[in-house]
């Protein structure tokens, strides 16, 4: 019974912290996505972000906002992971060599 009461208390306390009033397309998370790209939204904020996107969908200028978020995400992908560096390039070259060698051996029958 004590655990049950404690659970209710925790839920009551935690809800006001997670659900904040959102203002359509001008919410904090959407602004962040517009600025840095969608992948910079933290996993714990993601449910709120989806709800805010849904609210934004009701606004007349939502297509412009969505397009901006998408474009910014693609740009940040290229900026963040546009090059293979350090061990990641070594790994990529090795794997490419493995795959090529496998098919060369397979085709030549050795």
């Amino acid at each position, binding site marked *: 019974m004590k655990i049950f009461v404690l659970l209710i208390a925790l839920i009551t306390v935690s809800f006001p912290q997670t659900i904040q009033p959102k203002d359509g397309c001008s919410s904090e998370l959407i602004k962040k996505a517009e600025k840095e790209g*969608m992948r910079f939204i933290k996993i714990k904020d993601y449910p709120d972000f989806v709800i805010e996107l849904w609210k934004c969908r009701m606004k007349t200028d939502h297509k412009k906002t969505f397009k901006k978020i998408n474009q910014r995400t*693609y740009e940040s992908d*290229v900026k*963040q992971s*546009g090059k*293979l560096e350090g061990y990641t390039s070594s790994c*990529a070259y090795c*794997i490419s060599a493995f795959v090529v060698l496998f098919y060369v051996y397979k085709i030549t029958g050795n």
Partner: protein
Amino acid sequence: MSFTEKMMINFTTTCQVYFNTRLGFSQWMAFTSDSYNNADFKRSFSYRTFYLETFYFPWKRVELNFMIGPLINTGTISLTTAQSTEVWGDLLSEFENENIDITHTDEMTTTFFGLTSAVGIRYYLKPLLGVEFQIGFIENSYDKKDWSFQDKTVTGPDIDVDEMPLYSVGLVYGL
């Protein structure tokens, strides 16, 4: 190998741990079912891997990825056969059941290891949705003499799973 053994179903989950690196778990399932001496025969192979994937974006929306990982595989052959168990028959008839067919399923299993590696290209239709094509291979150390049945080591089927080319087409969803 049958069509359903060659066309495997794959499920993968990954987590990005660095700008160019993901760690993931992947499982391929191959199965076939048939009739053997009027008994239901099922054979399935599961290829599982915890893998490392490096990737980069040469252009917007286009990602090239390279994955490698060890495989821990299991193979199972099960057969469902009719049984004539008098005790069960007596008990069921005592509960006023008639003509109940009693069947029994048993299986032989094997575990073997391997290596998988692939290169792939992914195109993002949306930031969270992409289509991917991968080409690679699966190398296994399958031994037909290493099957077990009821805690005894037995000989299994002679299946060619040592070197398998791997072509994969899939949908990717996630952050």
